[in-house]
């Protein structure tokens, strides 16, 4: 993570001075993570791709506002979060697919592993706020205060969302994730 921050700082610094290749490298480094973050929030591949593109465009246009180039990652996630929330607040368009068809399409694009499908299904049963907090904490590895900065929420709220989401996931994934209960110790 430290090496990544150091490289991000250098690349972001060069990009701010007009080095297009440096920003292209940043796009390459972050596009998959940002895309997956947006995919988990929106649950729609095309929307996630469009939002991902918008995220990088806004990042490029507002590079001058990035106070600490080493914090490029959290800053990028904050832009992605804002894009996703704006998208979710808009009336959802008709996709031409019913829920079942959309679900099967999504499942087909996921790895055909039972555990992964179970986790996907469990994540979808969380509230959008809990899901985002869990993804940023468990999947992306941010600290509570970093997630608070990304989502513009108090850290205590983020902690509550992560704990509640983790508890629900533990309950939902128990049959798949939990091993056979060991014998009680005497």
């Amino acid at each position, binding site marked *: 993570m430290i090496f990544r921050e150091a490289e991000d700082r250098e690349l972001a610094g060069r990009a701010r*001075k*007009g080095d*297009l290749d440096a*920003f*292209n490298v940043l*796009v390459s480094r972050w*596009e*998959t*993570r940002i*895309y*997956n973050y947006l*995919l988990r929030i929106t649950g729609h*591949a095309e929307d996630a*791709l469009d939002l*991902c*593109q918008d995220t*990088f*465009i806004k990042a*490029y*246009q507002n590079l*001058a506002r990035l106070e600490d180039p080493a914090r490029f990652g959290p800053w990028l996630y904050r832009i992605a979060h804002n894009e996703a929330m704006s998208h979710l607040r808009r009336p959802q368009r008709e996709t031409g697919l019913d829920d079942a068809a959309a679900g099967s399409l999504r499942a087909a*694009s*996921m*790895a055909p*592993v039972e*555990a*992964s499908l*179970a*986790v*996907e299904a469990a*994540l979808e049963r969380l509230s959008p706020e809990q899901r985002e907090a*869990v993804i940023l*904490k*468990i*999947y992306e590895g941010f*600290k*509570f205060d970093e997630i608070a900065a990304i989502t513009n929420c108090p850290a205590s709220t983020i*902690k509550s969302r*992560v*704990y509640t989401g*983790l*508890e629900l*996931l*533990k309950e939902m*994934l*128990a049959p*798949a*994730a*939990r*091993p056979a*209960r*060991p014998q*009680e*110790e005497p």
Partner: protein
Amino acid sequence: MPCADFDWKGFVLQEAAPAERRAMEEHLKTCAACRREVDALGLTLVAVRQLPQQPIPRRLAFVSDPVFELPWWKRLWRMPAPAWGFASAALLVAAVALYGTLIRVPPQVAVQADPAAVERAVQAELERRLPAAVEAAVRAQLAPAVSQMEARLAAFEQKVEQERRADLRDVTAAFELLQKRINNVYLASAQYGGD
């Protein structure tokens, strides 16, 4: 049930403080219920973290693509410092050229500065200009009083003239009355045989 004294979610999420974490690890050695809770939470984390990342369906546009093009004012703002310097210099040269073309300044004659001569010239100029300036200032200061005095004088003269004419009319009337009486005396004396 795990012990309620410990924050096991914070423990598995690496959010516990080092001292607290050591105490929790010690506790885990002796408490099976808490171990089961930590195991369950840990397996949940592993399950979520092993969720595969999906590859991007198609590549994102790079900065060189038109979609990334900045608005003109942002492009202007993000010009590097040398470009700003060059633009400023060009603007300065253009301003100087424009000034030289449009505004004709009378040629300045170089004069050797002699302090005594300058002082004499200043003194002469002062003597030439000062009386007229003082007079003009005094006139300007006294103008209201003078005009007021002139108005009052004119009114007084008019009044005197009216009184003089009235007196003249009275004298003329008295003279005419006297003349009539004299005539009457002449007539009366003629009737009684006088000359």
